[in-house]
């Protein structure tokens, strides 16, 4: 009896091994048609992620239709293949796995994307370790490029777990996005330069009265980063702003009544809302409808997306949005490249584009250009080529008018231009459209479209 048992067991082992081996063999990819595989790291459960996907497909289509990318090493033009890397909601635990699979199994040539800071900081480790160029189009934390030795670890304390000691690996990271410092600066400067004088004249305040700012943010790296950066800039530049209250809440909160009530108690002149589309929209609605906090709210640029405008409806009227890509502020637009993009995007998808898509669209062109100049898909060469990118600005304005990744430093960031829009309700559309109210001009181009006005039902702080 024992013998037959042993036989069965041995046979079982052999069978299992054989099946697994056979299955493994069928996994080996066939000799592939030469294509450039670019992975798009996006959370497809999010409106922003879907926007990125649509923009990516548009870019890839355009590039391929125009003949693809000429790779001199192969003596031929090849097509770009979009490899979707679905990070679901772009959280760390949901993004590391898919990115690992894309890098190790699918063996993408390059990565584009990343949305949340925490997710990107987690999944970029895979790219760093494997030396894969990663054009990060989201993630407002500057640590994505500054956490390495070449940027003195971004000021991270020694022993900090976010430090990366791999300078070589870090050189493959490119940040094609604004950082929390970039847009916090624009927001607080707007309050100091535009809003405070208007308040002083309208309500006859003494000029020594500082503007009263409330910061309401989600309790994660992104929210905390913006709150901290805003306060730092106010102090560094000696701006006439007092942060009278700051409140944070868990990222999965959907109702903000008590927080808004506490803010109302503190009598602010303005509220800086730091969260993504769904929550920001909810806050602005609840603040006005349920808590009667009739102040002016300013949202962060990640809300620049059709879903936000739809969600706000009439509650967005005369509220503010900091942005770097304004598909709702025209036509005609402040940048001609927007006219083309918006038209093409709408034709293809029957909806207006959002900001994350714009970043992504540009990034694909940056990648294609870099590969062509490098003449190869060898990752080190491509990295060098991206580093020496000198394309004219596309959808995102830069301070110099060109796309340059930090000339003079060893880490790769761009210097994007951000502005503040005011939303105006449009009856025909049933939702708001926007106008740029600050600053006057950027990179030599005049962009201001109208003056900032205080909302009709506005009440200032004390």
């Amino acid at each position: 009896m024992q013998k037959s048992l042993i036989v069965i067991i041995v046979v079982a082992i052999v069978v299992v091994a054989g099946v697994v081996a056979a299955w493994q063999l069928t996994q080996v990819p066939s000799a592939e048609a030469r294509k450039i595989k670019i992975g798009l790291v996006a959370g497809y459960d999010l409106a922003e992620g879907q926007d990125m996907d649509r923009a990516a497909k548009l870019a890839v289509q355009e590039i391929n239709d125009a003949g693809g990318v000429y790779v001199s090493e192969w003596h031929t033009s090849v097509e770009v293949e979009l490899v979707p890397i679905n990070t679901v909601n772009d959280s760390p635990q949901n993004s590391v796995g898919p990115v690992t699979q894309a890098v190790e199994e699918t063996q993408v040539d390059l990565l584009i994307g990343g949305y949340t800071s925490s997710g990107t900081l987690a999944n970029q480790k895979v790219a760093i370790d494997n030396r894969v160029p990663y054009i990060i189009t989201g993630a407002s934390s500057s640590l994505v490029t500054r956490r390495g030795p070449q940027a003195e670890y971004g000021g991270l304390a020694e022993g900090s777990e976010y430090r990366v000691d791999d300078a070589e690996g870090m050189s493959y990271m490119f940040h094609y996005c604004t950082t929390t410092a970039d847009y916090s600066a624009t927001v607080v400067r707007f309050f100091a330069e535009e809003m405070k004088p208007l308040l002083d004249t309208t309500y006859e305040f003494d000029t020594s009265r500082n503007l009263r700012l409330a910061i309401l943010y989600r309790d994660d790296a992104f929210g905390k980063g913006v709150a901290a950066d805003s306060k730092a800039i106010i102090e560094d530049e000696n701006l006439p702003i007092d942060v009278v209250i700051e409140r944070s809440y868990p990222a999965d909160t959907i109702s903000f009544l008590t927080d808004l009530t506490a803010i109302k108690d503190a009598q602010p002149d303005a509220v800086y809302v730091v969260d993504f589309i769904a929550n920001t929209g909810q806050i602005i609605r609840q603040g006005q409808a349920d808590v009667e906090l009739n102040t002016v709210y300013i949202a962060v640029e990640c809300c620049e997306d059709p879903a936000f405008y739809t969600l706000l409806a009439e509650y967005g009227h005369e509220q503010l949005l900091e942005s770097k890509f304004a598909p709702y502020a025209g036509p005609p637009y402040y940048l001609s490249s927007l006219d083309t993009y918006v038209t093409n995007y709408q034709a293809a998808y029957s909806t207006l584009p959002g900001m994350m898509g714009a970043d992504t669209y540009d990034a694909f062109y940056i990648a294609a250009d870099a590969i062509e100049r490098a003449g190869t898909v060898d990752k080190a060469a491509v990295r060098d080529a991206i580093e020496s990118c000198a394309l004219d600005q596309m959808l995102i304005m830069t301070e110099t008018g060109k796309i340059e990744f930090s000339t003079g430093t060893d880490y790769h960031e761009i210097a994007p231009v951000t502005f503040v829009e005011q939303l105006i309700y449009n009856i025909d559309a049933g939702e708001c459209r926007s106008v740029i109210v600050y600053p006057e001009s950027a990179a030599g181009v005049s962009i201001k479209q109208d003056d900032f006005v205080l909302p009709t039902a506005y009440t200032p702080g004390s």
Partner: protein
Amino acid sequence: MKQLLLDSFNFVKKEVVAFSHSEKFYFVIAAMAIVAILPLLVNSYTVTDILTPMIIFAIYASSWNLLASSGQGSLGHAAFLGLGGFVSALLAVKLGVPPILGLFIGSLLSAAIGLLIGLTCVRLKAWFLAMVTFGFSVIIVTIFSEFDDFTGAVMGFPAPLIVERGLPFYYLSFAFAVISISIMYLVMKSKIGLAFKAIHQNELEAKMVGINTGKYRLIAFIISTFFAGLAGALYAQSIRYIHVSIFDPTYSFLPLMMCVIGGLSTIEGPLIGSAIIVAIDSYLYRIDGVLQALMGSLFPAVSSVGPPVRTLGLGLFLLVVVIFAPKGLSPLIKKAYHYLRRSLKEEKS
């Protein structure tokens, strides 16, 4: 004291000898052989992202199983998974403690907290205990988030590994699993395990026959949370990241699912359950495309019907198992095996 050690040693010797003569012995050897050879046959992604988690969750699920066998069904076990992960990672990163040592300290700390929580629960009935343990997992999230400057939980950070990722880490986890599960097996077979079962069946009666139910409930907590912490330390290293999301209810419900589906109170149940659920999790998402094509039009409110359909299916599966096969799949597999053997025997004779 010496007598206690001597008794334990004799007990272990007796159990090991008894086991080696049993039928199960060959199964275990065969299974271990398969687990040892398998990673050499598959690609590295499968090893790191599918097989290694299967092993680690086998430890985690077994730890939950041990606690449940004493009638204490915890709904907040993720707290200990996360504690083990965070303590070991923080020690390694902030104090330079070697990860292997950090792993043990993490497990010990997890057990210490487990003792505290066990104390609060020691007089509670099953459903109250479930609520309290769930409550603790919620509270621990708040604590770790509030003290983020110290814990780094909100952003998360990479956890340093004991050995290199891939095959070395796989075999290390395997070794830990063999040791952990063997220990838990011996505990379950011993008088302690019998006490657990008695308490589970009827606590009042157990008290009446003189079992110190409080003491054994605490023992169950300590052992269970120790191994949960150990699994947590390994898990953080396997995904190379530790983040506050490790305390999510999902991680609390996973071992429960694995044990119920695999077979509660058996030693192989959690292993089977872990293998099934990790496999389903890793591969099942590929049917999302098919699901979308089939049902997409029925549910226009969602962009991708795949994930909710799969989770709903999992819930239904759990219900079916609990209602129709409350002892899980393990006894069914055993029955199938015995049926096979009998029919083979009949063929021979």
